[in-house]
């Protein structure tokens, strides 16, 4: 009896959900870490994404209502796979953008490929995401720079400034290991010498053993491949242990105000490379104003602009071909789109050709664009140069 009843109830639910399908709604997915340690990155990107969709709805250029489906991947591949499955299960979702962590992207990419659904990566910078998967699967594209590009850019810059000896420290996460690999090869390409290489655990607080090893080699600069907490700890402990006269440098993993906050005075003079400083981009101020107008509770963060552009690329493709997953995916690959940061096209691996990078330096407790800094003007000198 009850069993039949339950089946009836179930059937009711299914009909209800299929009825909704008839309405003119097109959904676009967003995935990113909205909880956990990286939630700040994910929430900012989500808001910017949401902003793009809202603006598109307001523009009246689409004959249907656009809807954001934002799902949390919690920086965890398994959760990401759940979210991706949820997205592709929803027939109204035409395309998605996702992920700040490369392992999560690796877990979800096959799911999107199997379902012929486009995925634009907005924040994960693992090289293989496009070099390998983008090449294999036409559904996959990426709007942010790859990890090796950042390292090459940094190595180039430091080489030019005259740094020749380095100690490389990295954490044992995927990100850290990749940083080490690409920094190492970049430095060698420029003829610099890597005096020591060491790994630390994510979550480690005691950097003294690795730093002590570095002390012995007297490097001009210490490169760290990893994220903020450990970077700040390294910088603080470097000053304690007698590496005061070595430059500390890194890539976008450290590009967070939290670094300056935690490392305090010790942060001064740290050099990093990060995705472009966009304050000079035309339309930037309007974008920021629009973001502020929505009163999101979280700041946009460094990656908001990418997810914003990713959303707009999907929307542009949608406008071209209509709400069909496979066609949208194809259209994205071949798009030529003037976004916030410049003109987007994708190469044969799905990687954007737009190169967007800036050197920043920590100055008085803030990240300052190299071009505007006292270091560039010569008022202050970079650490570690003779």
């Amino acid at each position, binding site marked *: 009896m009850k*069993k039949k009843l339950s089946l009836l109830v179930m059937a009711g*639910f299914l009909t209800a959900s299929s009825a909704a399908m008839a309405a003119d709604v097109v959904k676009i997915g967003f995935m990113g870490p*909205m909880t956990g340690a990286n939630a700040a990155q994910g929430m900012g990107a989500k808001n910017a994404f949401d902003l793009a969709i809202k603006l598109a709805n307001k523009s009246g250029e689409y004959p249907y209502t656009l809807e954001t489906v934002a*799902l949390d991947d919690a920086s965890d591949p398994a959760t990401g796979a*759940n979210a991706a499955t949820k997205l592709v*299960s929803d027939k109204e979702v035409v395309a998605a953008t996702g992920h700040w962590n490369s*392992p999560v992207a*690796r*877990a979800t990419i096959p799911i999107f490929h199997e379902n012929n659904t486009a995925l634009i990566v907005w924040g994960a910078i693992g090289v293989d995401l496009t070099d390998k998967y983008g090449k294999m699967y036409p559904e996959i594209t990426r709007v942010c720079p790859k990890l090796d590009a950042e390292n090459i850019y940094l190595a180039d810059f430091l080489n030019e400034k005259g740094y020749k000896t380095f100690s490389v420290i990295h954490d044992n996460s*995927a990100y850290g290991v990749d940083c080490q690999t690409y920094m190492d090869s970049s430095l060698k390409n420029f003829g610099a010498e890597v005096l020591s290489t060491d790994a630390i655990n994510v979550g480690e607080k005691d950097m003294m053993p690795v730093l002590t090893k570095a002390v012995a080699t007297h490097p001009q600069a210490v490169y760290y491949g990893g994220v903020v907490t450990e970077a700040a700890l390294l910088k603080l402990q470097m000053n304690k242990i007698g590496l005061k006269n070595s430059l500390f440098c890194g890539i976008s993993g450290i590009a967070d105000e939290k670094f300056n906050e935690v490392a305090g005075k010790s942060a001064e003079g740290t050099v990093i490379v990060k995705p472009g400083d966009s304050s000079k981009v035309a339309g930037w101020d309007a974008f920021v104003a629009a973001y502020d107008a929505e009163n999101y509770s979280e700041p946009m963060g460094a990656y908001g602009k990418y997810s914003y552009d990713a959303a707009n690329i999907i929307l542009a493709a949608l406008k071209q071909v209509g709400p069909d997953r496979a066609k949208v995916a194809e259209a994205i690959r071949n798009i030529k789109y003037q976004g916030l940061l410049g003109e987007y096209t994708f190469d044969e691996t799905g990687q954007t050709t737009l190169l967007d990078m800036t050197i920043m330096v920590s100055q008085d407790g803030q990240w300052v664009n190299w071009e505007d800094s006292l270091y560039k003007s010569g008022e202050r000198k970079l650490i570690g140069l003779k």
Partner: protein
Amino acid sequence: MKKNTSPAAGFIFSSIIYAAVVIFMAVDDLYISLGLIVAFAAGIITAVKTGFWQRALGSINDNTGKMTVLAGIFTLILPLLFLNNPYVIHIFTLACIYCIATLGLNIQVGSAGMVNFAQGAFFGVGAYVSALLDVHFGFPFWITLPAGMAAAGIMGLLMGLPTLKTREYHLSLVTIACAYISFLLVMNFKWTGGPDGIPDISKPVIFGMEIGQKITLGSITIPGVMTYCYMVLAFLALALIAARRLQNSWYGLAWNAIRDDEISSRCYGLSLTRSKLEAFAFGSIFAGAAGALYAHFIGFMSTENMSFQIGLLLVCMVILGGMDNLAGVLVGTLLLIIIPEKLRAFEDYRMLSYGLVLILMLIFRPEGILPSKPRMFNLTGRG
């Protein structure tokens, strides 16, 4: 033993529960989910208050055979109900995979009374061995799966060694240490894929058909996850049978005995060494199987899925459901997989609630939702 309880109460009870579960899984809205949880809890409290709960459980206990069939039918129907929503099937499949791991953990925690926080590591070993054999050597799933199980079993034996001479508190420490050690080693070696994990793990192939591939039959499309789900269900059924047989055999009796009183057990010829190692080995084989199924299901394996937290979560599942009660273990696992997935918005509070639930359970209901009961022997001509 009286055996005249009618199965009706049990039927009604399980149908209601089933309907509730199905509705809960179908609902996508956070607030409706929350409402359902509250309603469900209220329903259970009412059922306990009115005595329906006890009557129903009694009826289920007395009609085990019929109820097993019913549960089987219910389970087999479940994926079909969600033909249009592969996401639900995906979550259900994951829950079933974890069920296999917790059935194994129950051997250690429930039957033998050894708290093992390294089940997550065994899960990982199974997954990694299977995945590596697949990705690097191209072995088919039907070889990599047993290999993963065997590797996990051997790991279990090895971990058992330092615990033999030691007591409960040392044992927990050893398992924690082993969980960290295996995590760090996998993380820091290149051939395990290191922190990048192992992508592109292939799907199992059976009779030339790739499991997990979507099938189109005329107008109906069967999502790929559906076939995988049924394969996992088949494995879960095997695991359940094996777990039940182990539990209701000399092995189970011996584990219970060493849990209750080591000295007494030794004086009756039970070798602690042997029983404990068996518990570790068998338990980890289950975890290894679950890990392998997981790796091939997601197609990607990384260290996040073998961390200490996973081990902790698995222990929570067993304690919540009911130690040494197989049905309880399944209930605990399903609850702790499905509810957090529905309440993903509260993800940040997840660990906190696990901690609180664990404390409250230990203080107020240490036997879990479904407590274990002595093995019921029905001997003819007696009683």
